[in-house]
């Protein structure tokens, strides 16, 4: 069992895990801004930003699954 790699993976998982709720909060923030927006252009801007945050969240979740899978593999070795 590669203890150094396990430690690295656990630290990476922790970073990704703590980042996900921040992306969700940021998305919610932009969606609220979009709902309150007075013009179509600003509404579109905030909606686009919200969509980007959703993309970040999805990407982080994908990375999290990969890291968890690798951690399990390293631990099983």
């Amino acid at each position, binding site marked *: 069992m590669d203890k150094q790699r396990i430690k690295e993976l*656990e630290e990476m*998982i*922790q*970073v990704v*895990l*703590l980042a*996900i*709720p921040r992306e*969700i*909060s940021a998305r*919610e923030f932009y969606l609220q801004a979009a709902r309150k927006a007075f013009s179509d252009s600003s509404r579109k801007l905030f*909606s*686009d930003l*919200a*969509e*980007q945050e*959703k*993309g*970040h*969240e*999805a*990407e982080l979740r*994908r990375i*999290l699954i990969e890291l*968890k899978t690798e951690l399990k593999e390293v631990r099983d070795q």
Partner: protein
Amino acid sequence: MKREDLKNYDGKDGRPIYFAYKGKVYDITGSRLWKNGTHVNRHHAGGDLTDFMSMAPHAEEVLQKCKVVGTLDDEVAEDITIDRMDVLRDWYRRFHPHPVTLHYPMGLYYFAAFMQLLYLIFRVPSFEHAAFYAFLGGTLTTVPAALSGLFSWWVNYQMTLTHIFRMKIIFSIVMLVFGVTGCILRFLHPQISTGTSPLSLTYSALVFLNVPALTIVAFNGGKITWPS
């Protein structure tokens, strides 16, 4: 097409390459940008890629060249897809029960230790009573604080056991065990604080030891809010 059926078109072992985007199912079989069902070593065929488009170096217009072979049965085309956990996360974000409840045991346990210390110095009975009732309150309010913490861990962090959460869980259990044991001892022996017997020392130790236990839980909670 159901999501479960879509998973069969994963591009592996010669199977076709399908993916969903905003409710439509696309057939990308034969594309040189997809190798063995994987696109740029990141995105896998057989899944819904809607959320990933904003991260892509290309716009959704590239899909105009792709063949649409159906729609997802359970899907309404919309800009941002919603999963079931989003509902719970949204509820948590609105009411944030863990930050609301955790301050009660924090304040009460610290206050209990402070009053017990004053009692041991000055021997004023009302100080001991205040310490006990604060300790009892701290123990009772630890339950909703711990439960809301577990709920947050589930909806926000998929119950992933990292060092931070491990420490929070272990020392929350320690706190509860100390709290319940101390309360039982004090209920059974109302004069427990007056003597210097091993039981008396044990009771005071439980009241004081919950301070470092609580501090470790709070410190790790702070690491979640302000990661370094």
